[in-house]
């Protein structure tokens, strides 16, 4: 998009995320957009519907911070550590609603939107108890074979927030390593906000165009935010801070604990945040 340009996190979020928006969160384990997500919390966004396939602790933090009215997901938890405690509390006390799919059906919901069709047929959500708890899930028959398939409805988020290795100023986004559903979720969305480890000259992008996962004309704003995926990781830059995830599990077991965690890690400026990271230990570049 012509108007794309280097923006601060605050300005990007102020311009492109509105209360009530459906927000796709990028990051399938890799390159989880913590910096952008935390900016949503600082900006006091409300009534967001957050969505992705496998949602980890960033989703839980947005819920804990009161930004979220609903979650659309295939999985939500703290990978290999435990459950999403703030999510659990929020559904127990009725403060949020949720809509529960599977990872493949979430990918198909996003793919349908990326491709501009209202649904895609699939061979899942036809058995087990999952289909019964999705309000209004319908089936279709293949007009050629008669086979019964699930009709997976498109999900077009208002805005995607994602993190990646690099982009140029016009918004060509390059990402490598684990992709998961990050790219399809961004492509599905009306607006895309990207934070990157580094903004590079367009000549760098043009030297490796196959690594460009999102073309510039789709991107609304690009922010240069080194370590913007911490405590998750960025392939080729820094590794995952597994201890941070374990620590979050411990602290998030109580409302007070999670509030303390957010106070420490979200209610701070970027320099203070960076100073708390053991960058020497985690850097891989």
């Amino acid at each position, binding site marked *: 998009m012509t108007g794309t340009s280097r923006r601060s996190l605050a300005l990007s979020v102020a311009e492109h995320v509105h209360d009530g928006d459906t927000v796709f969160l990028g*990051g*399938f*384990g*890799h390159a989880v957009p913590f910096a952008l997500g935390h900016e949503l919390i600082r900006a006091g966004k409300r009534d967001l519907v957050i969505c992705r*396939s*496998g949602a*980890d602790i960033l989703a839980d933090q947005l819920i804990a911070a009161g930004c979220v009215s609903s979650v659309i*997901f*295939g*999985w*939500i*938890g703290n*990978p*290999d*550590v435990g*459950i*999403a405690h703030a*999510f*659990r509390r929020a*559904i*127990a006390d009725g403060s949020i609603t949720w809509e*529960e*799919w*599977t*990872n*493949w*059906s979430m*990918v198909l919901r996003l*793919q349908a939107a990326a491709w501009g069709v209202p649904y895609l047929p*699939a*061979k*899942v*959500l*036809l*058995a*087990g*108890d*999952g289909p019964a*708890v999705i309000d209004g899930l319908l089936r279709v028959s293949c007009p050629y074979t008669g086979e*019964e398939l699930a009709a997976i409805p498109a999900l077009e988020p208002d805005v995607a927030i994602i993190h990646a290795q690099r982009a140029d100023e016009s918004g060509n986004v390059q990402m*490598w*390593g*684990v*992709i*998961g*559903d*990050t*790219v*399809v979720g961004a492509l599905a969305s009306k607006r895309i906000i990207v934070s990157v480890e580094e903004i590079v000259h367009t000549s760098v992008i043009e030297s490796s165009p196959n690594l460009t996962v999102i073309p510039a004309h789709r991107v609304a704003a690009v922010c240069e935010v080194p370590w913007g995926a911490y405590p998750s*990781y960025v*392939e080729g830059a820094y*590794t*995952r801070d*597994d201890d941070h*995830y374990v620590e979050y599990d411990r602290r998030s077991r109580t409302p007070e604990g999670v509030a303390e965690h957010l106070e420490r890690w979200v209610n701070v400026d970027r320099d203070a945040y960076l100073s708390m990271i053991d960058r020497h230990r985690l850097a*891989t570049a």
Partner: protein
Amino acid sequence: MHANDIELTSAAAARMLDDGEACFVGIGTPSIAALVAKHGHAPNLTLVYESGAYGTVPSTLPMSTGSPSVASGASCLGDCGLVFGDLQAGRIEVAILSAAQVDRFGNLNSTVIGRYRTPKVRLVGSGGAHDIASLVGRTLIVMPHDPRRFVEHVDFVTAPGFDRGGNRPRGTRGTGPVALITPRAVFGFGGGDLRLEALQPGHDAASATEGFGFSVPIADRVEQLEPPTRREMEIMARWTR
């Protein structure tokens, strides 16, 4: 050196993987089992992670299917669409799954303990488990021996095994679960119903089914499993010790 529970489970599961297969794996014991096979009798096993990774051989055990060790050493990093599309097209032979609960029909629950809208414990949800159980060629289930996890009917069928008639439900394909592997035994699903088929070293039928919430039929001839070999123990040591 005696094998611990994870080692007994992983080694027994590994032996059920054939060389040349593509194997959908999750984090934890499923990854260890696949790696034992890969480093042992099945060097051409392809590990597949839902994050889009094929052919990865993690050197450290990933905490997430999107972890750094899933990416490094992968021979192909596609995306979720590539992996799940391949799965839906019937091109992944086997998967190793685990869950919070398993029942006598091989159904897995990773969604809720209790009622769905008013759960006692809200769990993580399906992730790819429903998709895999519905679509893969066959499934191996690995579980710790925690009696609360073995129930007659799971509270929520996240990942379908067999229905109460012992058949694969409509809307699934593949042979479904072929084994439930624990540190105490291997159970089969011959008629779509759990049956004790082999015992881990030091266990008998009583201890293998201790605390199960239902009675378990026993095969006419129950095998005695060999403990993990020295080689298998060496392979596993870096992740389990």
